[in-house]
């Protein structure tokens, strides 16, 4: 499969049947890798059906590149990559498990040299084992981890350059981090290594007390659209994903957001 183009949406069970029935434009799909690593039955059959019509990129949440991939994970990811032939595999620049304990969440690392070295080693190993490029996403953080010495832009740039991986810029996460840490989103964007970005994510969020949570459960908010426009102005068109994971609306609502992103990409890219 060649490089992605245009705007994709996250393939979720609630969208299976409407997606097969729609005539509206969908450029590509992203699946949560873990939903298909052991897929049998319906999930397996539906993946085959969608793969006939659209390019599909596996996007993981459990690689845990900051600690180590869970036992057996990379072998299954390799098989999924062989099945789908994606342009790359993506996951997050974080950890989600420690040893056998999985936290089912994306957790921030201290941004220091040892963490960079660990991620670089793991990312290279995963790329080599799967035969696929790896792309790592910036996560939402709610607290600075003790021991951090670098800002996020520096941290991600070094990882991208030393590991030879691409980056996935989640524009919503950038906005959330700015708000959660009292920073200027444009300053965060200035520091972000846009030259390494191969994909963008857009999603909704929710407020919980004084923090914004990355829940993928609401429409994309106005400040995120503004930031997206700024990214496209700076870097040109970049394949973009619309993400919904909770309170998933009718497909047309998801595709309206995809159309809006495509329109911004065409106008400003």
């Amino acid at each position, binding site marked *: 499969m060649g490089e992605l183009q245009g705007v994709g949406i996250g393939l979720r069970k609630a969208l299976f*049947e409407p997606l097969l029935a729609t005539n509206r434009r969908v450029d590509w799909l992203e699946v949560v890798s*873990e*939903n298909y*690593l*052991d897929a*049998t*039955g*319906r*999930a397996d*059959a*539906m993946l085959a059906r969608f793969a006939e019509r659209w390019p599909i990129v596996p996007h993981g*949440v*459990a690689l845990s590149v900051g*600690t180590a991939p*869970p036992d057996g*994970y990379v072998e299954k990811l390799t098989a999924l990559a062989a099945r789908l032939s994606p342009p790359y595999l993506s996951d997050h620049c974080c*950890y*989600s*498990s*420690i040893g*056998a*304990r*999985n*936290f*089912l*969440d994306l*957790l921030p*690392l*201290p941004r*220091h040299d*040892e*963490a960079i070295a*660990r991620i670089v080693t793991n990312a290279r190993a995963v790329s080599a084992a799967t035969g696929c490029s790896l792309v790592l996403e910036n996560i939402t953080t*709610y*607290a*600075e*981890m*003790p*021991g*951090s*010495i670098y800002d996020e832009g520096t941290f991600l740039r070094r990882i991208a350059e030393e590991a030879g991986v691409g980056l996935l810029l989640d524009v919503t996460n950038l906005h959330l981090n700015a708000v959660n*840490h009292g920073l200027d989103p444009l300053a965060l964007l200035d520091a972000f290594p846009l030259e390494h970005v191969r994909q963008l994510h857009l999603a909704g969020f929710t407020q919980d007390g004084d*923090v914004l*949570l990355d829940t993928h459960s609401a429409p994309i908010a106005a400040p995120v659209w503004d930031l997206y426009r700024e990214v496209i102005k700076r870097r040109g068109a970049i394949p973009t994903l619309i993400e919904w994971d909770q309170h998933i609306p009718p497909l047309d609502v998801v595709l309206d957001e995809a159309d809006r992103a495509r329109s911004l990409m065409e106008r400003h890219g």
Partner: protein
Amino acid sequence: MTTSLESFFATMGALMEGSISAEQCEARLGPSASGTARLALYPRLIARQATSALDAMFAAARIAGLAWDADGYRALQAGYLAAHPPRSWSPSEVVVGFADYLEAHGAPRDIVELADYARVCRQVLAAPASDGTAGLAVVHYQHAVREFALGIKAGSIAEGRPAARPTTWILGRHRETQRLVAVTPSVPALVALQVLTDGTWSGGLPAVERSHVRLEAAALVRLGVLAPTAQTLVDELACD
């Protein structure tokens, strides 16, 4: 202060499992620039994430559980997650044992049945394709759990508990659409499944007209839950 990664993970793991406080975490790793309260958010988010996985898979059991005893149901959820800390990357794999846990810990029968129904549906949808009966399930409940679960999913039921009414279902997956199919079985339909499973017409089966069994097998084929080859096998066995 920069501590080693191993020390970081050991300490953060302890924080997220609730065995140390955020203050103790900072004492070991140094302060978070965001403050102690923000660091303390993580164990809460981790617990919420795991509970969300339970709520997602057992949506109908949750509604009935909250109607039964909200604190009691939440205590059962917390107890399950404490006894079974996630060790899989698959949230549904992590929580699938909750149905057994509810039964073992004395949850009301209707809530146990709702959880079991969710688990069986998952198994049916995930079963490898089969020409026989391997992916089918026959379930008997004392409550109208399927009706209740469908109402929750459709949004027509937001609270309450399932009616006390014995129900029996054949649950299967449509061979083309891959959707869950539920059939209220007749005795001949159950006999058809038993004959297919056994590969023979054994002596212990209920006395039914073999022609009725063949018709019910044909109906299950039309509903997409049995392969046409299964009907052929039933036809052959019925002629023996």
